[in-house]
């Protein structure tokens, strides 16, 4: 028998270490330590009800266990084989105790569709993909279904583009299928560029065949015989695995001429991007593939009409493709049963930032931020306070405490002033300055703007300068108006999605954290203590013993005072390097 004790950060904060010790000592007292083992595990993703103790092999799941409960668990469960009812999870709906974690459906918040094979199969072995229903969807489509039937199925599933904008995938395919041409192209957008996002890389590295299969299905639907994967050169492992996968599919005859004897032909090639963020925009991506500068052009014409080399092309994101085979195999109805009214299925998120369980997760649409951050994500690092979560990368915005219980889908995120984006989720705590965060994203946009249209090229630079001025403590109230006006102009007049969404971080922080802007401008203070220019190191005259350690370490001789008497810092000379703060052994120096 095994007793598993959660060793996740959240549970450890509520004394799971003491539970572990008590269990061990109680077992030893009863001479059971040879037969029953106590083991520390990672986070169960159910921190709200922690600490958690799970008994194996019967899968009993005890919640909110206290150190003093250890005796009862050993005496009752281990020795007498009776479950300790009062510690079992109480189902909030039917008020019944749930004994077996396998029946705790609501506890398992995640469902893996796009990530179904990641971490299960060897991505470099096509056989393992085939043994998990691989290429069955393609076979089903090209032998038993008409292209329009496949398109109807995708439309019925309600799948929307996972790259961020959320355009209905089935509709996109239908439009591309109706434009007649001698040659058409299926394009996979693997130019993942949001800071902190790694969903697409993981899919390509863990399950490249699912993307290949889906692209072939798309080719069949729209009448294209060629597929292109536009992937960034910074993803060498994903490229290598994709190449191996393409070669294996060709060997098996699942790519190439006359696939499965149906006469349908489809093949794939790779195109490498040099890591320009704007090339994730589909027209810029197509130009880059053509060997031209990666700059967007006005839509229409849409790629479905005039895309790669002027031919009808359909561009979808990696995760969108990864969903396709499952929709065909399990049916549109099944897929549409997951998610919310207008956003179906699941979404993969890359959880990063000040969160305990940094990781890749896949949850049904409609899951709340609270469930993602505090249950799956295990809460905020070091027990700090949650402040905001940034979704949608440089095009998105910040969501705050008041949004924690909003079900996440395309429309709700837009209504909250952010966007789905490709799925990066960066969690911030009380130590993050929201003006600096907005500045960070603008810095990124200024760097990544292609420079073709003026609002984006010049406007974003000006936005950045104003934000910088505010973080230096030189902002004025007029600057806030300027930020808003300029943001609106950039949003309304930029050529492509990059510029149209680049002011979002500014607008959403202005909406949600207006007080912080005010504190910077009016009080010349940074509430989070991040903006260096607004900090002041001060010596507490009562705590200072005059050891002179700070004065000796100060690189600009800003600290003066007699030996054994309180010292002072000349703020006019101080460069805020923090050396004195770290050196002081008496905690006499503080940041104002």
């Amino acid at each position, binding site marked *: 028998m095994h007793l598993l004790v959660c060793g996740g950060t959240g549970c450890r904060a509520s004394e799971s270490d003491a539970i572990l010790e008590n269990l061990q000592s109680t077992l030893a007292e009863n001479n059971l330590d040879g037969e029953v083992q106590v083991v520390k595990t990672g*986070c169960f993703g159910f921190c709200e009800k922690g600490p958690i103790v799970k008994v194996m092999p019967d899968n009993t799941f005890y919640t909110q266990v206290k150190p003093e409960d250890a005796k009862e668990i050993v005496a009752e469960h281990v020795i007498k084989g009776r479950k300790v009812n009062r510690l079992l999870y109480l189902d909030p709906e039917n008020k019944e105790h749930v004994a077996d974690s396998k029946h705790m459906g609501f506890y398992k918040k995640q469902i893996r569709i796009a990530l179904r094979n990641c971490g299960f199969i060897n991505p470099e072995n096509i056989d393992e993909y085939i043994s998990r229903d691989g290429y069955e969807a393609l076979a089903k489509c090209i032998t038993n279904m008409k292209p329009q039937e496949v398109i109807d199925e995708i439309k019925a599933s309600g799948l929307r583009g996972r790259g961020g904008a959320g355009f209905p995938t089935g509709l996109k395919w239908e439009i591309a299928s109706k434009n007649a041409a001698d040659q058409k192209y299926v394009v996979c957008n693997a130019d993942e560029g949001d800071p902190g996002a790694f969903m697409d890389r993981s899919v390509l590295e863990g399950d490249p065949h699912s993307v290949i299969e889906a692209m072939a299905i798309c080719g069949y639907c729209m009448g294209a015989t060629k597929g292109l994967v536009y992937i960034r050169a910074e993803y060498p492992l994903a490229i290598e695995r994709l190449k191996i996968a393409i070669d294996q599919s060709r060997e098996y005859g699942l790519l190439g001429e006359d696939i499965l004897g149906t006469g349908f032909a489809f093949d794939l090639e790779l195109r490498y991007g040099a890591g320009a963020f704007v090339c994730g925009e589909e027209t810029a991506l197509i130009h880059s593939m053509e060997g031209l500068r990666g700059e967007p052009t006005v839509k229409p014409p849409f790629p479905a009409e005039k895309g790669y080399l002027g031919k009808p092309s359909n561009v979808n994101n990696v995760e969108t493709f990864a969903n396709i085979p499952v929709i065909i195999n399990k049916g549109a109805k099944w897929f549409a049963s997951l998610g919310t009214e207008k956003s179906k299925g699941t979404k993969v998120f890359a959880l990063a930032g000040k969160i305990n369980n940094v990781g890749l997760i896949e949850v049904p649409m409609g899951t709340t931020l609270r469930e993602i951050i505090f249950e799956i994500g295990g809460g905020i690092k070091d027990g700090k306070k949650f402040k905001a979560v940034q979704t949608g990368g440089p095009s998105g915005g910040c969501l705050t405490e008041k949004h924690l219980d909003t079900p996440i889908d395309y429309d709700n995120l837009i209504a909250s002033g952010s966007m789905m984006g490709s799925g990066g989720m960066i969690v911030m705590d009380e130590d993050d300055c929201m003006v600096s965060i907005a500045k960070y994203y603008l810095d990124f946009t200024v760097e990544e703007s292609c420079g073709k249209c003026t609002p984006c090229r010049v406007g974003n630079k000006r936005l950045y300068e104003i934000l910088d001025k505010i973080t230096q403590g030189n902002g004025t109230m007029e600057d806030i108006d300027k930020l808003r006006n300029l943001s609106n102009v950039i949003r309304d007049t930029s050529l492509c999605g990059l510029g149209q969404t680049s002011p979002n971080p500014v607008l959403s922080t202005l909406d949600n954290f207006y007080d912080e802007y005010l504190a910077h401008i009016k009080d010349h203070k940074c509430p989070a203590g991040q903006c260096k220019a607004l900090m002041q190191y001060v010596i507490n005259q009562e705590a200072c013993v005059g050891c002179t350690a700070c004065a000796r370490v100060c690189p600009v001789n800003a600290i003066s005072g007699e030996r054994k008497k309180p010292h002072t810092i000349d703020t006019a000379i101080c460069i805020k390097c923090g050396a004195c703060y770290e050196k002081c052994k008496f905690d006499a120096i503080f940041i104002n």
Partner: protein
Amino acid sequence: MVKVKSLADLKKIKSELQSKLDLREKSEHPEKIVQVKVAMATCGIASGAKQVMDFMIEEFEKRGIDAVVTQTGCMGYCYAEPTIEVTVPGKEPIVFGYVNIQKADTIIEKYVKNGELVDGIIPVNYETIEKQ
């Protein structure tokens, strides 16, 4: 390699593969073959998964344990990389996190040889599509 020529072909290959994978488990020493999957996405490799994989292949051989060690993609537990999944026949697969070479050694000695669980187990917290 024989080409897949029809849907029936694909289905045949699939069932052959499944029984072959089954066979791998039920080969000469059915009770002994251990399966280990190492999460080898960029993040896993960066935190040392490759060394762990090499170590496990070598050590299983040296210690005379019948085992298959394969690579797989990201399991999603970035905070606990490198991660591995160990399946001892007759038991449910178990995922271990924070696996360095020392930990890999402990897992072989304690879990694989004696069935004793060791610290660092990552509880499965998601549903697969098969169960849906």
